[in-house]
């Protein structure tokens, strides 16, 4: 309607349209500026991966070195270690953490007692709101060899103390357990929402046909949330390389670096701690590009499965 009021592309019409929406432009401007400065300027800054960036020379005058940093990274023995660690942690995550919220949501959905359901939900959501520092802190207090609960129990029942926090063998298990503890409850929300949309008449009909609870679960409930499961799995694959950075950063120490160092933590220690800006930007760029490819591919997959996709 409004567009028809200014049909011709005359300059004055354009001006009029601009003036009419001037407050909208005014409102969008700060946000736009924010995205340009804090999101697009860093993207432009990626070019230092192709230069030998020296702070006193500045962005422009630092010498261009092409793919030097990438070559160094790919021929570095750290590369394979980082790749392996990231892949294993991500795989653990999908194998052991991903199914749990689904299982818990299905169980919650079967609960008849509204009060117990509400109580359990309230309790299992809580850890999501704690910072990783708190979660890792609690893990430290539980697992330390100096009076930690787990080791005290081990000793009491005739075992020996295990140095959980500075060992290679336990690192991945602890990381995965922490994720499960923190996020399982919260992860149920989306599945519970999907389950709430199931038509109760379906269950009624199934009961008439003599289906027991397990059969109802298998033939009605699970198919109902199938598409939610698939889309979340695909989204998860899109962020496959994004192992929880803060968590790993906090759990990492000199003793477990061999299994714990992932791309993000490596970028931090090489870039910020050692000041090798260009090299660590190259590492970060490598990870971002793989991540972008994974997102695009998984979104394509989502659409192939007949889902909406994320964009």
């Amino acid at each position, binding site marked *: 309607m409004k567009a028809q009021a200014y049909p011709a592309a005359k300059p004055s019409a354009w001006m009029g349209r601009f003036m009419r929406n001037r407050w909208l432009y005014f409102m969008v401007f700060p946000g736009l500026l924010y995205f340009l400065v*804090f*999101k697009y300027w860093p993207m432009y800054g990626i070019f230092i991966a192709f230069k030998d960036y020296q702070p006193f020379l500045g962005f422009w005058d630092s010498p261009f070195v092409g793919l030097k940093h990438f070559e160094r990274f790919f021929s570095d023995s750290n590369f394979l270690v980082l790749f392996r660690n990231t892949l294993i942690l991500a795989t653990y995550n999908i194998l052991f953490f991903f199914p749990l919220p689904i299982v818990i949501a299905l169980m919650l959905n079967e609960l008849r007692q509204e009060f117990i359901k509400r109580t359990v939900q309230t309790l299992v959501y809580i850890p999501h709101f704690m910072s990783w520092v708190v979660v890792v802190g609690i893990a430290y207090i539980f697992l330390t060899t100096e009076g930690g609960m787990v080791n005290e129990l081990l000793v009491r029942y005739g075992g020996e103390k295990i140095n959980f926090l500075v060992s290679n063998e336990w690192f991945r298990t602890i990381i995965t357990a922490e994720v499960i503890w923190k996020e399982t409850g919260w992860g149920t929300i989306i599945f519970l929402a999907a389950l709430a949309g199931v038509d109760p008449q379906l269950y009624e009909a199934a009961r008439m046909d003599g289906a027991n609870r397990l059969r109802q679960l298998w033939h009605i409930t699970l198919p109902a949330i199938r598409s939610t499961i698939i889309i979340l799995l695909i989204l998860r694959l899109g962020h496959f390389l994004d192992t929880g950075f803060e968590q790993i950063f906090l759990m990492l120490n000199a003793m477990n670096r061999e299994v714990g160092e992932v791309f993000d933590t490596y970028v931090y220690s090489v870039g910020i701690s050692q000041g090798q800006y260009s090299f660590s930007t190259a590492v970060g760029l490598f990870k971002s590009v793989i991540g972008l490819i994974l997102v695009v591919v998984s979104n394509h997959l989502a659409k192939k499965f007949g889902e909406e996709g994320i964009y």
Partner: protein
Amino acid sequence: MPIKPSWGSRIFDSLNVTLLLAFALITVIPFIYVIAGSFATQKELLQRGFILFPTEYTLDAYKYIFSTPTLVRSLLVTVYITVVGTLINIFFTCMMAYPLARKDMDFRKPILLLVVFTMLFGGGMIPTFLVVKQLGMINTYWSLLIPGAISAFNLIIMRNFFQQLPDGLEESAKIDGCNDLGIFFRIVLPLSLPAIATFSLFYAVGHWNTFFNAVLYINDHTKWPIQVLLRQIVILASGGVGDSSSMEADFVAPPEQSVKMAVIVVSTLPILLVYPFLQKHFAKGVLLGSVKG
């Protein structure tokens, strides 16, 4: 008429309840352990190893940490960042989301595309760090407030929310002589209070838990938010809470377990106090997220 449940169904139910309660218990026990431990005496902690219910309560750990300037200062820093940061988040998110929700806004497709792309690809840690550094934000609270001012995800959800408001609202306000700014502040924002509340709480939790940005951008330990101090005390345990001069240089004996636990409680409690208010909103907030635009 409900049918009498079969035996199989009853066994199913009781097994289900038992397992879920067990899961809830596993989730909660660490809290109880930490809260109980923070009230226990060091002697009892050492003797019994672990405690879920201390035999004697003492406030020593709390008295100690609140007598130190470091913890109180960090708490104040975090409160400041949470309050100011959330206001900034909400203001800028809504301000940008509203024009993008208006069908008569020019360039809204390209601007949206610009925003969505940042969700898929970014400059990464080092280039972002260098931008913040070049803007002179290192060691200032701005570095914790501004670089995360707008979450692209929240922006898009907020825009979808604004889009659901009826068009007639704007028309009539315009006829009454209101400009777009007036419509936004006087009509759209008041109508959006439930959504704003949800996002405020999500943003606030993010600020309260802010950790890594502070590690990156804040070197001055007198400006540390509580989470960074918490890491220092509980995980690195290289200095005491009372040591305010230089946390890392002077090596002080690691703090007692009960002190660590008390610091955890103090740095988490405010979130847990917000939680009951949050709870009835967030399921809705998460569902908003699944609305496609």
